[in-house]
């Protein structure tokens, strides 16, 4: 039975692998956010650390609610996928062993159930991102800022998707239109632009994970969220707080 050993190894960051909990102690390391992060540390120490699965669950929910694409969590995800693979291998090994007892079977069943649950979250997380990548493909292709938040695979997919749809539109319709209307990126007045961009003003429900720096609301007022505060605000006002992991979307 080596699950226990593996778990311990994982907790201590196992050899050269960077510790999975690093993320929490220094979220993002984004320049502007650093000051507040240090200030908020006392709030953080009272709580036990989030497990990688809890982190992913939080990012999954954020991704589902946010209108924009959030920064990719490649390291977290690949560590979890590694863990999933090792758990599945352990299960396979034990299932093949005829000497496993009845009691062991329940253990195996529980481990397997958990594997399926985690796989569901991972899949839903990746699919949510894929949906946004395809929806905003043309916007991604021209925006460096959003490209930084994607993985290499997501970026390539977005650019390819944008190119193929462009080609399709051109061949099926645009080439037979007059020159003035035959482009996808012209911006006629009174008509929304043809490049789909995330609607940053869409309201979201936020839950403050700790004391947050004040934000400015659309009506000019300022709001300082205390830990546990729940609010409905336009996404653009809390976008940086979401990125710095000071709030979660619910």
């Amino acid at each position, binding site marked *: *039975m080596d*699950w*226990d050993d*593996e*778990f*311990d190894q994982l907790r201590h960051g196992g050899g050269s692998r960077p510790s999975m909990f690093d993320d929490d102690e220094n979220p993002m390391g984004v320049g502007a956010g650093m000051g507040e992060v240090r200030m908020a540390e006392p709030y953080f120490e009272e709580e036990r650390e989030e*497990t*990688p*699965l*809890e982190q992913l*669950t939080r990012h999954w*929910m954020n991704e*589902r*609610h946010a209108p924009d694409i959030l920064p990719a969590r490649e390291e977290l995800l690949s560590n*979890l996928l590694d*863990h*999933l693979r090792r*758990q599945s291998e352990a299960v396979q090994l034990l299932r093949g062993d005829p000497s496993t007892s009845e*009691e062991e079977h*329940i*253990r195996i*069943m*529980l*481990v397997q*159930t*958990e*594997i399926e*649950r*985690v796989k*569901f*979250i991972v899949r*839903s997380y990746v*699919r*949510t991102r*894929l*949906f946004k990548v*395809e929806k905003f493909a043309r916007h991604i292709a021209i925006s460096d800022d959003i490209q930084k938040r994607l993985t290499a695979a997501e970026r390539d997919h977005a650019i390819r998707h944008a190119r193929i749809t462009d080609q399709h539109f051109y061949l099926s319709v645009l080439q037979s239109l007059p020159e003035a209307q035959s482009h996808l990126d012209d911006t006629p007045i009174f008509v929304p632009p043809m490049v789909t961009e995330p609607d940053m*003003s*869409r*309201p*979201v*429900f936020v839950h403050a994970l700790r004391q947050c720096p004040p934000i400015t*609301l*659309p*009506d000019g*007022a300022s*709001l300082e969220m205390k830990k546990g*505060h*729940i*609010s*409905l*605000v*336009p996404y653009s006002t809390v976008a940086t707080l979401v990125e710095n992991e000071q709030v979660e979307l*619910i």
Partner: protein
Amino acid sequence: MALPQPLRVSVTPPELELVACQQLIEIVPLISMEKTAFISGAYGPLRPPHKAKIPIWMAVNLKLKKKCHIVPPEWLSVDFLQSKLTLETTQPAFSDLPFRFAEISKVLLDVASDDLDNPEKIRSLLKDLREARQAKSRDGLKQLDHSELSLPNLCSMEINEIRPVFIQAMSVLTRIVRNPIRTETGGL
């Protein structure tokens, strides 16, 4: 299609249940099990009749196989819920309940009602609570403007319930505020 249409606007109640069931709960095991490392952490050892803390989904799984009794959380009792209901019906603010109480109480009432004291009464109290709170959140729609709405003590399932209407309403308000000239000329 990466994400089916119904999942694009909001998360679904079963997904919220999945998230809620990662929380820990106390059980009295009827089987023994060595300490085991799961992805979410190490649980066990289970030694009847000693209590142990495991995730809710695991407890539900064992309960369905009649391998454990679930110790209901403190808040899932007639006394606690009754006092919250009194607060709920006398005070204008939302009373303070666990964030995922709706999901957890549903799961426990479904699979472990024999471990609860007076499950019928609990069920009806939860229903009354839900109705009282629902009325308040509907009232909250009046206070909605284009910039912010604080919702202290609102729970995960309730937020999910009001999400479509509130988000739509706020988006419309934002559009009206942002383009005042067009609405003025449109009004004439």
